[in-house]
């Protein structure tokens, strides 16, 4: 049966993951809206997951650790999204804004 491992070389997948990570990082750094930052972070987490799955599939397909770790990452991402969004709502309620550059009480 033909499979991904024969059709696509591993570096392609890793490059895709790296690109996705960098795009997500750009989003997280450049967005004004706090929710937008969160979107960027989700992209970064997905990039990590692609990496994990790719390494699992290409290098150790019969060891289950890669998928397991990806699942843990998804779990953590879900928890992070829930808490992050709750914090955004709390900030919005307290300050009537969701713009990250207006939330700078710690400015020196």
């Amino acid at each position, binding site marked *: 049966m033909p499979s991904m491992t024969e059709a696509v070389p591993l570096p392609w997948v890793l490059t895709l993951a790296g690109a996705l990570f960098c795009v997500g990082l750009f989003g997280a750094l450049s967005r004004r809206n706090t929710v937008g930052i969160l979107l960027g972070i989700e992209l970064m987490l997905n990039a990590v997951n692609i990496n994990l799955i790719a390494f699992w599939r290409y290098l150790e397909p019969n060891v289950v650790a890669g998928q397991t770790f990806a*699942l843990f990452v998804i779990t953590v991402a879900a928890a992070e999204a829930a808490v992050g969004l709750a914090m955004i709502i709390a900030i919005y309620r307290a300050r009537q804004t969701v713009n990250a550059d207006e939330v700078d009480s710690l400015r020196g």
Partner: protein
Amino acid sequence: MGQYQSPCLVLCMNTLITVLFLIFAALILTSAIMTVTVKNIVHAALWLISSFFGVGALYLLMEAEFLGVAQVLIYVGAVSILILFAIMLTRDLEGSQNRQLTPRWWIALIVPAALFGLLIVPTVMTHAWQLPPPPPAGQPPAISGAQQIGTAFMREYFLPFQVAAILLTVAMIGAIVIAFEERERRRRVLTLVEQVRLRQRQQQRQQPAPRPEPAATAVQTSEATGGET
């Protein structure tokens, strides 16, 4: 697909997989770029969902069915809905018309670009990956699936599994606590029985000497604050 395999099939399938991979990669990257650049935050979230779909399809392509489906279930079904909810709860209408990027967005462009160009690409391209040898012909490669994941969660990764469960619980409670809005005093619609009883009591009260109601002012203030929230 049956037992019958022509050599063309393998070749064609390989091409097909490559093409599919490229399509998915394009979908993922385009959606991701749209996510981080598009002006409207709701559109950004929708683009993010499209990117999630691409990643899920990529998982399916890599024969991680369980993860692909879990990706759709958790990211598309839960996380993005959560994000959409949060956007709609915090939407300020004028804000969505303003600029979406921070003033120093060029810094934010340089850092990821440097990361990608200077580190990721050279590392990925120059590293020698020790790929395992392909399985002997006619024998399917041993690929761990959902059942192995379940077994692993109950055996080797039992403790992390429990920790993840606790983490989710804690996150849920934390999210509720953080986002919880305490109503000052909830004004409830009275049931019919309560209204009747209330009227009776009022009449009983009016028969003796009417005394000044100290509670009246307090209620007014509470109404004022209650109306605000």
